[in-house]
């Protein structure tokens, strides 16, 4: 990780740099707050370790200045100081510091804190990546509105219920539910690769056009697979890939792109499949009105064991009230009305 150390004491700087390099970090140094701000403008540093007492801008003011500027990403700020006392800790946290480490530092404690920083910065990157990709897909999709928001809410409801089902205990937990919530909006990311003449066609698709449309699963899956291979620790990319490629598979093997059946379809894909269909059924399209919940429910129950995993249909039936509440809360017509009123 690239770390910017701000420290005016030469010996402390050498000690700190040595420890961080020992742990494999890339280190740059600034002798005071002004130089640090200059270096931060390059956008190359997202993690700062700063002394408190320095000439010119002190560590707390440096932190405050960083928090006030409009930066592209979050800067994790660790204040390192020989100042004792709870009021100093409170002052530094109020200025926006993320960590407060007492001098003389313990290198292993410092390294532990840097790992925390890495995890937090990675979370921010993950949210940004998912949000940007989902918005990109949404921009190309005629069925916009709150579709993505509803899908992820439906998915989370189903996954949370499945946490309580013994059969899924090993696979589904709170992390799975949260990751599904984050990644399910990417299910149609592959639509960015579908030509406008097919994607935006108002009438029914010809068989040839439908074959082209079906490739959005392959395009999305391949795109996310490349990202997942490049970042093997980013589990969310693996889940996003599985969802993109498998959310049109059917439990009886009649879906696409590969005709997978039963539990060979990733669980996340099976959950998104039901959520996506429920939302499509209960939302208006150019070729159909929005069906009511009961109609959608009947269609889904009819598809139990054919289109949908029976366990997920059962979960849906148990969570019907939550689906209705989400639909009411994220109803496109009401949202449009609210926006128009607010505007």
């Amino acid at each position, binding site marked *: 990780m690239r770390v910017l150390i701000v420290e005016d004491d030469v010996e402390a700087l050498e000690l700190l740099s*040595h420890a961080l390099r020992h742990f494999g970090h890339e280190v740059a140094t600034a002798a005071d707050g002004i130089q640090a701000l200059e270096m931060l403008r390059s956008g190359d540093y997202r993690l700062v370790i700063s002394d408190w007492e320095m000439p010119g801008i002190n560590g707390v003011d440096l932190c405050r200045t960083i928090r006030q500027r409009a930066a592209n990403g979050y800067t994790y700020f660790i204040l390192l100081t020989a100042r004792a006392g709870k009021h100093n800790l409170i002052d530094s946290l109020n200025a926006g510091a993320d960590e407060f480490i007492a001098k003389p530092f313990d290198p292993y404690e410092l390294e532990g804190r840097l790992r925390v920083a890495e995890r937090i910065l990675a979370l921010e990157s993950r949210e940004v990546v998912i949000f940007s990709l989902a918005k990109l897909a949404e921009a190309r999709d005629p069925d916009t509105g709150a579709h993505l928001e509803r899908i992820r809410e439906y998915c989370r409801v189903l996954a949370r219920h499945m946490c309580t089902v013994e059969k899924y205990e090993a696979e589904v937990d709170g992390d799975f539910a949260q990751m599904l919530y984050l990644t399910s909006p990417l299910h149609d990311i592959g639509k960015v690769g579908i030509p406008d003449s097919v994607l935006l066609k108002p009438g029914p698709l010809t068989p040839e056009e439908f074959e082209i449309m079906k490739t959005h699963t392959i395009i999305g899956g391949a795109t996310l697979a490349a990202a997942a291979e490049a970042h093997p620790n980013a589990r969310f990319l693996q889940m996003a890939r599985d969802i993109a490629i498998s959310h049109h598979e059917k439990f009886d093997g009649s879906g696409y792109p590969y005709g997978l059946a039963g539990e060979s379809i990733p669980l996340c894909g099976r959950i998104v499949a039901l959520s996506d269909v429920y939302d499509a059924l209960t939302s208006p399209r150019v070729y159909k009105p929005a069906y009511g919940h009961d109609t959608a429910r009947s269609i889904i129950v009819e598809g139990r064991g054919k289109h949908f995993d029976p366990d997920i249909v059962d979960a849906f039936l148990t969570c019907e009230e939550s689906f209705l509440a989400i639909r009411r809360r994220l109803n496109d017509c009401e949202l449009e009305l609210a926006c128009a009123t607010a505007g």
Partner: protein
Amino acid sequence: MSMTTKHELGASARAATSAADEMAQVLALDELLRRCMGCVPLAQRLLTSFEMRFNSEVEQIVNSLHDGDVPRLVRLTHQLKGAAGNVSALELRQVLEAMEMAAREKQLDRVVVLLPALNEEGARFAQCKVSALAALSRQAAASESTN
């Protein structure tokens, strides 16, 4: 072996232990090496440079005390306290912490009272540093021969 000899050996071992304990209070060499990630040359360099800056910074502390320049006194005592902490000069750091606190509370008479302790601890540190450097050199030589 007679009881007396045993006793004498015990006393000498105790004396050695107590000298080591005392040294650890003045200069915690293990802690310093841990902070230096086991890098002996870095530890040696830090000890030497700390001793070099110590006298001149104490002189500046005395001058700021004489001038009644409290902000400078606070900054200098804080700075030297940090440096003492970095080289694990534990007792020296404690004295400087007390001086800094007194300076922050503008109790300059308390700072004056602590000055002899500062000089005394500085002298003890200088003594311990000699044996610490020798120990570090031995350690470096041993590790070279192992490698």
